[in-house]
């Protein structure tokens, strides 16, 4: 035993060792506390974050349903294309962010390296197109037009192209069967926007980042049905995105197919003849303006008179819907929507509105009968009609003496309707309407469905307008400030008009009412409205909602949902008057204003009815209208700045009928040549696998006339014995489609 402490050390060291020990333990305590905080207190939040870390969604897009014509011919379907895509996640792992790989890829695809790199960058506010606005985890398509050779090159040398895939994928195709286009009716697709994804998140059909959404036409109207449901497979992945297990998967459900009432062959005829008519109109000289007709736009509707189903609907100018497939180029977009484009995206059959001119007399006649004027009464068809010094002239200042309303329709006498409208206006109280005012000409027009949308199954239909007293009041309220500012007594014509409008634009003037009675002035109608009305006259008075969709058939063909015609009212005409009007419209063809266009028509076998219209628009050339019907079909054609109704549109409409019924220009009917002598009632045949049979289509050959007659004679055909017009349609009129040079399609593809 010694006196030194057992440990042999001084208190200073001893104390310090205790300090060290406490320090060490408190460090470990800190770790334990922090561990408890992370794992026990915040554990759930981290667990959630961890699971988000490892689940990666891979979307298998649903194959979009096809749009078929009435016989099953696909007018919009999908084709298998070789899509070359790049994975951003893989590219970014490379030292140069994949620049070398992309450059090499550009070489294989025959593209510029910059072009390829631009496609892979992500869109933001500062990045112009092209850029990728989808999920950065989704493979980004670089081209969907790779050749099999290019795809093979990429696949066989996959080690040279890390992150690049070449896979077949279903891509929308607007097949254009038989040369038809149907662009505005079909509409188009474009990628879903962030906004739409947010909005649809909690609905029963949420969008996926990769979704294409219908933007117009049938693609938009039936988007939900056509789109189907994308399949989502959730994989557990590691930090490099490598799959380490499958979490769950919902298989993709292909979209339903939409059978329409469109007949691709008739559609082709309608498109061709509309374009041809416009071309010919441009060759005609307009005496009023001193230049050729511009014929800048036109539309034609072929409708089943008894159901309101649309057999063909064409709008001109038009475009190639395939331009939208795989993302539209900036150049194409400018061409379709720019100021100088004349807006080919507009479907003028439902979105073009104009004064109807004399085809409105169907409504005026009904209004007159409703107001108590007998159909067979005698009404003076003078060469002009004056109201307070203002002279309203008959067309070409012709007079026919006292005639019936029927005859007034046949010869399109304006003064008969001027007089009746003026009388009614006066009876209603003139400028200061009585409380009991009937406003027959206006209420009847509303009952005919004018001034309101027809309810066709296409988006953004416009309603036109009936300029009744109420509308005048509202319109004046909205515009009087600018009128009063601009208007000047004794100024230019426009200033004078504005001045008058400022003073009494809210009042229904006699002249307004008189003009309105023959479809001029502020009235606006759409071709589809007029087709609906003339169909109703043909079918005994039922106003059908026009429809394009006929049935929605599920991808497996098992569920068929028919779209039944619906009506939105009846014409306010009794049976006797309807019969009289029918006779009058037939008279238009046999001895009236359209007779010169229907020489040689087999009227006894296919009774044709028609009404011509030539609407004047201030500052523009006249609008050509031609409304026609048989017992099965209604065809309404209009050409803006195209000339007279029968002159510009007559031959084209006749040729559509000839194609429908198989009538040759000399009036012989050949049922074998008839495209659709009676409307297609049945749905196309659905095979057990869900595919739909489609007949083959022959391209439309327009009837040959004039110079080509000799050729026709030489080949042993009968010469057409009807009116000859200068020039025939040449093949230049056939719109060429960039991607649909495949000719007629016989079968639709169910998947790819």
């Amino acid at each position, binding site marked *: *035993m010694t006196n030194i402490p*057992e*440990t*042999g*050390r*001084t208190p*200073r*060291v*001893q104390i*310090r*060792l*205790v*300090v*060290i*020990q406490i*320090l*060490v*333990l408190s*460090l*470990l305590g*800190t*770790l*334990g506390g*922090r*561990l*408890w905080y*992370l*794992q*026990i207190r*915040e*554990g*759930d*939040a*981290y*667990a959630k*974050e*961890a*699971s988000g*870390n*490892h689940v990666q969604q891979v979307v298998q897009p649903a194959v979009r349903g096809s749009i078929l014509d009435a016989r099953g011919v696909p007018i919009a379907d999908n084709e298998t294309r070789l899509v070359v895509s790049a994975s951003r996640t893989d590219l970014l792992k490379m030292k140069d962010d994949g620049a070398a790989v992309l450059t090499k890829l550009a070489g294989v695809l025959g593209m510029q390296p910059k072009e390829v790199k631009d496609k892979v960058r992500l869109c933001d506010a500062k990045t112009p197109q092209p850029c990728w606005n989808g999920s950065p985890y989704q493979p980004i398509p670089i081209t969907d037009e790779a050749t099999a050779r290019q795809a093979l090159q990429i696949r066989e040398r996959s080690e040279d192209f890390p992150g690049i895939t070449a896979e077949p994928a279903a891509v929308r195709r607007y097949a254009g069967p038989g040369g038809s286009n149907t662009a505005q009716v079909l509409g188009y697709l474009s990628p879903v926007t962030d906004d739409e994804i947010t909005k649809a998140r909690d609905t029963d059909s949420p969008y996926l980042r990769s979704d294409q959404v219908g933007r117009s036409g049938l693609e938009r109207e039936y988007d939900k049905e056509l789109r189907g449901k994308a399949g989502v497979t959730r994989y*557990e*992945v*590691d*930090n*490099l995105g490598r799959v*380490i297990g499958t979490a769950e998967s919902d298989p993709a459900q292909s979209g339903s197919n939409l059978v329409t009432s469109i007949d691709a062959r008739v559609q082709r005829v309608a498109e061709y003849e509309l374009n041809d008519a416009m071309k010919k109109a441009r060759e005609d000289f307009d005496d009023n303006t001193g230049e050729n007709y511009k014929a800048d736009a036109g539309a034609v509707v072929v409708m089943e008179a008894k159901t309101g189903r649309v057999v063909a609907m064409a709008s001109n100018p038009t475009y190639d819907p395939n331009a939208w497939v795989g993302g539209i180029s900036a150049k194409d977009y400018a061409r379709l929507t720019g100021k100088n484009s004349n807006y080919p995206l507009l479907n003028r059959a439902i979105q073009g509105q104009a004064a109807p001119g004399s085809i409105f007399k169907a409504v005026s006649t009904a209004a007159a009968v409703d107001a108590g004027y007998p159909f067979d009464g005698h009404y003076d068809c003078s060469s002009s009609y004056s109201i307070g010094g203002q002279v309203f002239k008959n067309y070409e200042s012709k007079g026919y003496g006292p005639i019936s309303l029927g005859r007034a329709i046949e010869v399109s006498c304006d003064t008969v309707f001027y007089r009746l409208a003026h009388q009614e206006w006066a009876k209603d109280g003139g400028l200061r309407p009585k409380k009991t005012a009937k406003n027959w000409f206006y209420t009847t027009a509303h009952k005919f469905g004018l001034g309101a949308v027809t309810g066709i199954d296409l988006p953004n239909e416009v309603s036109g307008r009936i300029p009744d007293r109420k509308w005048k009041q509202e319109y004046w309220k909205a515009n009087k400030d600018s009128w009063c500012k601009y208007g000047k007594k004794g100024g230019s014509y426009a200033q004078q008009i504005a001045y008058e409008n400022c003073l009494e634009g809210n009042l229904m003037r006699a002249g307004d009412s008189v003009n309105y009675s023959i479809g001029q002035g502020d009235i606006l109608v759409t071709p589809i409205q007029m087709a609906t009305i003339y169909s109703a006259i043909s079918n005994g008075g039922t106003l059908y909602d026009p429809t394009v969709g006929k049935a929605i058939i599920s991808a497996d063909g098992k569920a068929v949902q028919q779209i039944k015609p619906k009506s939105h009212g009846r014409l306010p005409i009794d049976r006797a008057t309807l019969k009289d009007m029918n006779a009058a419209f037939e008279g238009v063809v046999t001895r009236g204003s359209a007779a010169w266009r229907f020489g040689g028509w087999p009227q006894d076998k296919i009774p044709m009815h028609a009404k011509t219209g030539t609407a004047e628009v201030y500052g523009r050339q006249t609008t050509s209208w031609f409304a026609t019907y048989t017992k099965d079909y209604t065809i309404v054609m209009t050409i803006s700045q195209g000339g007279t109704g029968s002159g510009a549109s007559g031959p084209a409409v006749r040729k559509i009928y000839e194609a429908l019924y198989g009538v040759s220009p000399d009036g012989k009917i050949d049922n074998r040549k008839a495209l659709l002598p009676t409307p297609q009632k049945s749905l196309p045949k659905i095979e057990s696998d869900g595919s739909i049979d489609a007949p083959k289509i022959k391209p439309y050959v327009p009837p040959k006339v004039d110079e080509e007659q000799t050729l026709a004679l030489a080949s042993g055909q009968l010469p057409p014995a009807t009116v000859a017009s200068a020039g025939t349609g040449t093949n230049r009129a056939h719109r060429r489609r960039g991607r649909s040079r495949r000719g007629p399609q016989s079968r639709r593809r169910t998947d790819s």
Partner: protein
Amino acid sequence: MTGANTFSVSGYGPERSSLSRMLARDSLARRLDWPILLSALALSFMGAILVYSATRNRTEINQGDQYYFLIRHLMNTGIGFCLMMGTVWLGHRTLRTAVPILYGLSVFLILMVLTPLGATVNGAHAWIVFGGGFSLQPSEFVKITIILGMAMLLAARVDAGDKLYPDHRTVLQALGLAAVPMMIVMLMPDLGSVMVMVIIVLGVLLASGASNRWIFGLLGTGALGAVLIWQLGVLDEYQINRFAAFANPELDPSGVGYNTNQARIAIGSGGLTGTGLFHGSQTTGQFVPEQQTDFVFTVAGEELGFVGAGLIIVLLGVVLWRACRIARETTELYGTIVAAGIIAWFAFQAFENIGMTLGIMPVAGLPLPFVSYGGSSMFAVWVAVGLLQSIRVQRPMSA
């Protein structure tokens, strides 16, 4: 007290059978500190399992053999255990005489790193790579030689009974001895190891009984140095980034902050009992980088939960607790200083390593003692355990 033979290890007592010798009160086996030994072994074996879990799917580094890292970790543990036994057999007193040679050797090795023989791993140029997949991180061994060297200098005159405390001259010499290798390691640059060495020096000085002025002076110099380093831009970009990302991982979630963030998610998602061994999605998915080495604690956190990760901390606690007892109970200042240096080393390295995975310390490339994969580190910590055992074994039996 029983008698004069208290200081003897063996040889003075009566003849005994080998079994009874082993079980005898004064036998080597009885004198070993079993809690430290068992804890260190438990940590090493837990490490083996965690390293295996982290690497069995990493085909890009395990050369297609899922047991590659497991086997090597166990081999390292075995070699480390042998090194410990060797150290105990030699005894720290024997080693005391060899300190100048060992110190010189370790300094020579770290100098080698600066020659073309050196290799860079994860931004730190701290390795010597030999052929055949063998590599050495000499800074691990420098930690030991600094402890031994400083202890030798500081304790020499005190243990001789000349002085109560080391004088300023001795302290200065000891600091100089530590500074030389630290400067070299700094040049690599292996900042993590330098930090550990600074803490070791602090621990050694504290235990040596050196004047408070030295302690506070050193702390002040350290703080001043840190500010200067920051201001003068001595640090490499990656070192600053690592530091900044610890402070705010959201600043750069896909870059430097990614490590810290993913580590935190891994540990946090473990909960109380973890996802089960080999079932951690963060681990299986390899979201945490360097998971078999610096971030091995995250495997425990995720797959074994609070229970398993807590056990690692408790086992380290046992090692450190027993080491503190050894430091306090030995009679020689030399042993106390060596033990204190080891405590400072283990405690700081464990705190820094676990702390960075928990997001309370900046990211530094330091292995977790016993648990992390890595030969040099494993050998060094086992040699340190050997030193602790030797200090305990060679001290007189307390009454």
